[in-house]
């Protein structure tokens, strides 16, 4: 068995070029994996709406860690056509994380128009260890989103939620 000593920078490079596992929201129309490959949609602006780590366990948890269903993950998402959630889980075991996406609209004072959320979709992310995953949330222009994760085996997930605005060439 041989050991290889690599720098932190080299490790990051290897992580970044590792193949990407993609999960598709099961209740939604499947779209292309990458927005730039879509003939009719060309993003011109992307913004990081949330970034951090989430300790997943058997409860449905917001990416921010709470289990309070009224709290959103992100607010002020109205301008974005689409959202993308990317990340990876620490550990040597294969990843098997359930996720679901909720959305709602708010009035001019920031109060939700109604109780609860609209279910946008759900998916199961299954990837080998230390592989990146990517989920596209195509239902854009909601004001607030809540992204929840759950895992039978406790995992630490590092992830980022990106909103994109683009040109439409329909």
């Amino acid at each position, binding site marked *: 068995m041989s050991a290889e000593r690599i720098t932190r920078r080299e490790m990051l490079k290897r992580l970044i070029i590792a193949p990407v596992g993609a999960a598709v929201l099961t209740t939604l129309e499947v779209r292309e994996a990458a927005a730039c490959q879509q003939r009719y949609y060309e993003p*011109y*602006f992307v913004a990081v709406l949330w970034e951090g780590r989430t300790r997943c366990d058997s409860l449905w948890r917001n990416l921010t860690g709470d289990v309070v269903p009224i709290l959103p993950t992100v607010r002020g998402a*109205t*301008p974005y*056509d689409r959202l993308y959630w990317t990340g990876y889980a620490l550990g040597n075991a294969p990843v098997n994380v359930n996720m679901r996406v909720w959305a*709602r*609209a*708010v*009035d*001019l004072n920031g109060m939700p*128009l*109604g*109780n*609860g*959320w*609209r279910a946008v979709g759900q998916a199961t992310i299954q990837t080998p260890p230390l592989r990146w995953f990517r989920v596209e949330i195509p*239902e854009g*222009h*909601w004001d607030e989103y809540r992204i929840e994760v759950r895992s039978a085996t406790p995992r630490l997930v590092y992830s980022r939620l990106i909103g994109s*605005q683009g*040109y*439409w060439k*329909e």
Partner: protein
Amino acid sequence: MRTRPQTLYVGTLQVGATPKDVLNQAEPLAPTFVNAEQCRAFYWTGVKGSDAPIAYTVRGGNANGWQWSASGQITGNARSWFRVVIKPPAPYNWYRFEVSGASQSLHSKITGVEEVAE
């Protein structure tokens, strides 16, 4: 051209058998929005008051009359969320968002996505 969302309407309407727009205007020629030529899409979201479906018609036109329309139904249980996406085939100056159906309240919001010069 870039896009910019704009909240055009937030409110509650008492839906009834008589078709009315979201501003509670029963006059079929009355527009809900004017000067909306820059809007290339409308995102109509909200919560319906009862299980009964709500029929909607969106019309586009100008002071000379309506030139385009799209119809459909807003379905779902009481207090459930809905979302209707309207993408008119051409820009119109006037739009009318009209609903009718069994008596219930409709709490909704209409966001117009405008095209703006860079």
